[in-house]
């Protein structure tokens, strides 16, 4: 497997193995980009605390190849149950309509 295949395989494992995943620049506590910070805040507002945040600035494979995984070229990217939800605009829009909370609730229900 080449570098790209390995990276895509890792991404697949991460997004399908966890109910909620946020690929972002920086961390939820210390976001390195305004849009990533906004995405983390939306998740916080949804009441989800145990999501997986991947800092793409420390994950070269994700940084270089995430755009190919779901054909979406920018960070942040939020995945719920393996499906790309979108970037911060879409997350905020869905949150304002009450849709994101519902999806997260369903994904994290035991």
């Amino acid at each position, binding site marked *: 497997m080449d570098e790209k295949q390995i990276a895509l395989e890792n991404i697949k494992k991460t997004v399908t193995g966890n109910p909620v995943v946020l690929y972002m620049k920086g961390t939820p506590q210390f976001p390195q980009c*305004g849009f990533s910070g906004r995405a983390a805040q939306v998740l916080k507002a949804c009441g989800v605390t145990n999501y997986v945040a991947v800092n793409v600035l420390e994950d070269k494979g994700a940084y270089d190849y995430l755009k190919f995984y779901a*054909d979406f*070229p*920018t960070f942040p990217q939020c995945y719920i149950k393996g499906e790309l939800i*979108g*970037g*911060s*605009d879409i997350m905020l*829009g869905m949150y304002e309509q009450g849709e994101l909370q519902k999806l997260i609730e369903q994904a994290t229900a035991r």
Partner: protein
Amino acid sequence: MKVTPENVRDFILQGLACEHIQVDGDGRHFEAVIVSREFEGKGMLQRHKQVYQVLGDRMEKIHALSMKTWTPEQWADNQ
């Protein structure tokens, strides 16, 4: 060369028929309001992907693009 909001606007218009488009930005962060019939029947993710597809490799030069993607009807409701 630095990308201007006008560049981004023109790039989008080359591949997407818009009823209305407004792009603001500082050369790295851009905000776009895009109103197009082509968004009808599509969810937000599909709309954003469509715009990214139109921009293609030029996204490399555009650090961040915040978008509002509306159909003409949604746009009218938001006025």
